[in-house]
């Protein structure tokens, strides 16, 4: 398990460096240079250039900000909504719980990609719409987890003991319920992050997410699919990036899961 933590952190750090240091060290990812179209990898362009002569590494870095940023936004938004909704359902019980649980049931009864497709279908393609759409699908599992955590918390021996000792409700929630919930949510979110990256880039690949010239990894792959035979480096960059990002999320989630 140590190994998964190390490998996951290393991969995540690599991507973070790419995303954050990219704009400082690399050329403008969106500026076309018609004189330098489709150059193979070289010292000046470590990953070559694309159809418009843009530096692929720079676009990869810019895409890291877009893809990972969007995926993190989805995951964070989903986790935040899920924790609040699940917490409210678990504590309020009664009709509030019933209403929230019903919505969660329905969302969980539909594959998340389908939910995302449905929402994008209604709002229209676009990265912002896609992020919203995927967040709609992402909050349900977190809500269910939080709710069951809160519900079982009431009968957990350590909580009963604390309540009997006179510890206030709020302190019990802060001290006993939330920290455990937080770790669980984190593990679920990390797992979801990988799926979100795949889903996001997949839908962008289909043209339902980021629109050109935004350098989103799936979008970059969509732009370059024609060039696989002649300029394979165009696919290698974003392809490997997605692979690394999803693996990093999976490894970290594994590690978190083992800790619980």
């Amino acid at each position, binding site marked *: 398990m140590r190994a998964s933590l190390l490998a996951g952190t290393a991969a995540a750090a690599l991507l973070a460096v790419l995303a954050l240091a990219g704009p400082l060290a690399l050329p403008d990812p969106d500026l*076309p240079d*018609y*004189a330098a*179209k*489709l150059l193979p990898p070289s010292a000046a362009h470590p990953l070559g250039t694309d*159809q*418009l002569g843009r530096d692929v590494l720079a676009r990869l870095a810019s895409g890291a900000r877009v893809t990972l940023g969007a995926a993190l936004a989805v995951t964070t938004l989903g986790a935040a909504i899920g924790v609040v909704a699940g917490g409210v359902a678990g504590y309020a019980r009664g009709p509030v719980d019933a209403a929230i649980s019903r919505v969660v049931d329905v969302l969980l009864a539909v594959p998340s990609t389908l939910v995302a497709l449905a929402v994008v279908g209604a709002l*229209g393609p676009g990265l912002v719409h896609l992020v919203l759409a995927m967040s709609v699908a992402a909050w349900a599992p977190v809500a269910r987890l939080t709710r069951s955590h809160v519900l079982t918390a009431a009968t957990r021996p350590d909580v009963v003991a604390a309540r009997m000792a006179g510890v206030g409700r709020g302190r019990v929630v802060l001290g006993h319920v939330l920290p455990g919930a937080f770790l669980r949510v984190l593990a679920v979110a990390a797992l979801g992050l990988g799926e979100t990256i795949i889903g996001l880039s997949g839908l962008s690949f289909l*043209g339902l997410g980021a*629109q*050109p*010239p935004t350098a989103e990894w799936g979008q970059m792959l969509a*732009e370059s*699919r*024609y*060039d696989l*035979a*002649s*300029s394979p480096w165009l696919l290698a960059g974003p392809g490997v990036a997605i692979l690394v990002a999803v693996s990093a999320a999976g490894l970290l989630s594994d590690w978190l899961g083992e800790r619980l």
Partner: protein
Amino acid sequence: MSIDVKRPFLAVALLASLAACGAQEPVAQARLRVVTPYSVKSLDPIKQGFWASEWGYGELLMRPTERGTVEPWLLASLSRQGESAWTLTLRQGVRFQSGRTLDAVALKELMEAHLARNPAVRSALEGAKVAVTGPLAVRLETAEPVANLPSLLADESMFSVFDVASGTFTGPFEVKSLDSRKLVLARDPGYWGGKVRLDGVEVRFVPDGQARTLAVRSGEADLAFYPPTDALRTLKGDARVSIREAALATGQLRGFLNVRKAPLDDSRVRRALSLAVDRKELAETVMDGFYRTPSGVYPEALPYSVKNLRTELPAAERLLEEAGWRRGADGTRARDGRPLAITINAYSPQPDTKPLAVAMQAQLAKAGFLVKVAEVPENYAAMRSADGWDVGLSFDGSLSYGFDPVAPLAQMMRTKGPRNLGGIADPGLDQVIDGLAGAFEPAERDRLLREAQRVAVEEQAYHLIVVDRVPRVVAGPRYRDYRPSSVLLHLDASTAPCGDSCGS
């Protein structure tokens, strides 16, 4: 690592595919396989009649040629009788696939059917009447003079020729089957025009551009129509396929200019805009030569064309100075504190508009324009609002598919024309356009067209012509000498594989 385990089912997949390929009947030597993005939705000769002439199962009364002219096709002759009447005389011996002869009665029936149900025909020939005047001759009388009737009869969206009784056509091919995926055609053995060289044609509808070109590369298809520019670029240097192009550029990427608001309400700014765009760089460098550099609104081969498009940065700057736009410190021009800012709309269904707009952004910056590139889902819809855009890119030909220059002009530039999206209201130009409707003499027509070009391009620069688009196909080895039609007449009796001469 992954190969080790995936190999078993990959192998299964391969074996199954191999078996499937083996099971397919060997492709007949003279059978053409085509992939195209647009599906033939039905065989309705009026609503979907234009497919008939495109795919060779139907024909037209007049034929647009590759020189930009029209000539009789199913007609033997077309002659004018006074201001608003024409005599149409049919060729002898033309038969429908049902066996019925195309005679004057059949022609009258089909023309009346079109006049009743075809909106394009109805709006062009409002109130027209057809009368049989001989075994092969009918007289067409129109309410207004229609000078462009030859072009109308050559336009695929107008009079598709069909047998009203049986719904069959006259083309070299018969429709064997049609569903949402493919159209299957077979040679009509009784074709009036003689021997049809191909045994049959299979037209598959494949919306995905990548898949179409891949299909030719993999040998599944012989011709891929409407290849995306992205795909063409990657085909350069692939010996298995060739990119074939038509003679004439019938489509253009043009910018509709929003002349209702500043800064493009000033003709000097519009002219400066046109002078600042380097069309050669756009067509040859940005688009890798897959577009052509336009010299005017119409193809140079046409008698009335005027070469009046040029790139001259100093002249553009002079015009802008004259109009009061002065350069600021950052190079952007401004007047009364407001920058010379314009928004160019690219539209997603035509992905090429985006890089072209971006490249124009850089070119126009040299003249002092501050350009914002916006992307809209639908070009016309975005231009319907009077605000929010200055240049709306759109692929719109200056010629109809019957080589008619007048109808596009009237639609796009006449005051309140249905496609006059930028709000052009120019009484002088309107007068020229109205004159064209009654100009039967070629000399008179050409004079008026030149006048229209002078006003629309040189004086007022109402549209920004960007690049010319030539129809292209990607052809496999057996069709490497296939010549795409400029006007979408993809197949005829002489279409055939190239035989031994190009097999090597």
